[in-house]
């Protein structure tokens, strides 16, 4: 449940054409992914296959599974550890006509208390001597939210995403990118299980819990810029920056620098550092002064004042195996990211011996691994 809303937004980015005037190569990727951090372990497989037809049409299919085992700080302080599985299917079609690529995609994501359908249409065109690629897309999402153990509860979310993406060749060694996206959501936007806490002199620990309540609408705007530069000794360096703001008063900055270094024809190494910081939503509080203190209440740490740091490493080994002669080439890939999340107004209430509102701030580290095989055919 906590993961799926982000997932359906993230997958909306998938179906954009890879390049306007040429369709992507035929390719299959089989990945095992693993996340471990903050008491949560998530792993599972992902399969992505793309195939061209007559150099004008392309089809893609994606299968993805999250197997979640959660004893997160929210879960251990207000609920019980749980396990669940989320499964996602997606299909996409592309049609290339001259310098324009038209694409459509659909995906479905489901778990036992959440179902999401997402459809995307996009158009992408090369212009100015093929130095500029402009892509526009529109995504519509329909989510059904339910709550385990409560047959009377059911609600919905209606989501629309408008996006534009521009890629510009600036010099013979540099490419620039610009993206702008507006995401509007309407419906049941909070987590049906999560609680907020408030000061309660009658409680033994000094505070009690009540269900969180979010506004039923949210609109966010994100603008990002990126530049990728080819270094003289055949390596690449990239810088990214994103600004985000929304109607819940969250304001966020994301910055990333990455470096790609091929060692020879077979080995490629990647390293990156990403920094993220945000202000809290206006209705967020770690500890409200009393019950029903205001109309909207949140104690979701993703809506608090926070920063995250990510240090990532990757290695790719390309090869051609005689045993797999149907593949033009193949690669084995390992990616590892170490993440640290630090919260400035979300306190660790699993600690004891502190007065309410004086507990230490919460933080946690996470390890993220992707191991995948790619084959071009």
């Amino acid at each position: 449940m906590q993961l799926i809303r982000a997932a359906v937004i993230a997958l909306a980015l998938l179906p954009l054409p890879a390049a306007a005037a040429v369709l992507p190569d035929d390719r299959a990727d089989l990945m095992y992914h693993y996340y471990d951090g903050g008491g949560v372990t998530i792993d599972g497989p992902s399969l992505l296959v793309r195939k061209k037809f007559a150099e004008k049409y392309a089809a893609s299919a994606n299968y993805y599974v999250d197997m979640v085992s959660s004893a997160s700080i929210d879960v251990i302080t207000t609920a019980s550890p749980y396990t669940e599985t989320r499964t996602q299917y997606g299909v996409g079609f592309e049609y290339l006509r001259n310098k324009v690529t038209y694409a459509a995609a659909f995906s479905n994501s489901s778990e036992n208390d959440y179902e999401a359908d997402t459809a995307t249409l996009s158009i992408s065109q090369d212009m100015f001597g093929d130095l500029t690629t402009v892509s526009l897309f529109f995504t519509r999402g329909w989510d059904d939210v339910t709550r385990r153990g409560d047959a009377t509860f059911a609600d919905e979310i209606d989501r629309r995403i408008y996006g534009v993406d521009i890629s510009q060749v600036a010099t013979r060694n540099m490419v620039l990118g610009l993206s702008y996206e507006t995401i509007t959501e309407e419906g049941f936007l909070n987590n049906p299980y999560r609680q907020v806490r408030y000061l309660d002199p009658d409680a033994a620990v000094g505070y009690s819990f009540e269900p969180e309540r979010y506004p039923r609408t949210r609109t966010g705007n994100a603008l990002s810029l990126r530049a990728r530069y080819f270094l003289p000794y055949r390596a690449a360096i990239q810088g990214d920056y994103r600004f985000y703001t929304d109607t819940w008063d969250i304001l966020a900055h994301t910055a990333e620098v990455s470096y790609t270094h091929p060692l020879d024809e077979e080995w490629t190494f990647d390293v990156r550092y990403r920094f993220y910081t945000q202000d809290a939503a206006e209705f967020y509080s770690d500890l409200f002064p009393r019950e029903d203190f205001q109309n909207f209440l949140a104690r979701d740490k993703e809506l608090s004042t926070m920063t995250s740091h990510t240090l990532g490493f990757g290695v790719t080994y390309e090869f051609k195996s005689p045993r797999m002669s149907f593949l033009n080439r193949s690669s084995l890939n390992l990616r590892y990211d170490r993440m640290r999340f630090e919260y400035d107004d979300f306190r660790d209430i699993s600690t004891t011996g502190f007065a309410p509102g004086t507990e230490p701030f919460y933080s946690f580290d996470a390890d993220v691994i992707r191991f995948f095989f790619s084959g071009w055919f």
Partner: protein
Amino acid sequence: MKPARIAALLLLAAAACGCSRVEPWVKPYERENIADPIMAWDRDPVSSSYMRHVFEAREGARGALGASGGGCGCN
């Protein structure tokens, strides 16, 4: 201004620009470096889309991570 109107305006602007001829300042024969696979915005979509999911599930900001669009203009 509504997002749909902004998108329509951008589309119109892009279409209008397409009518005038712009001389490419990076000639096709000068695009060897930017055509190198290491210059792709997104070399491994299966991995990068997963990482978007990891970040968006744990942070308040979403969207505009782009990078899946755009070509090198090498054709």
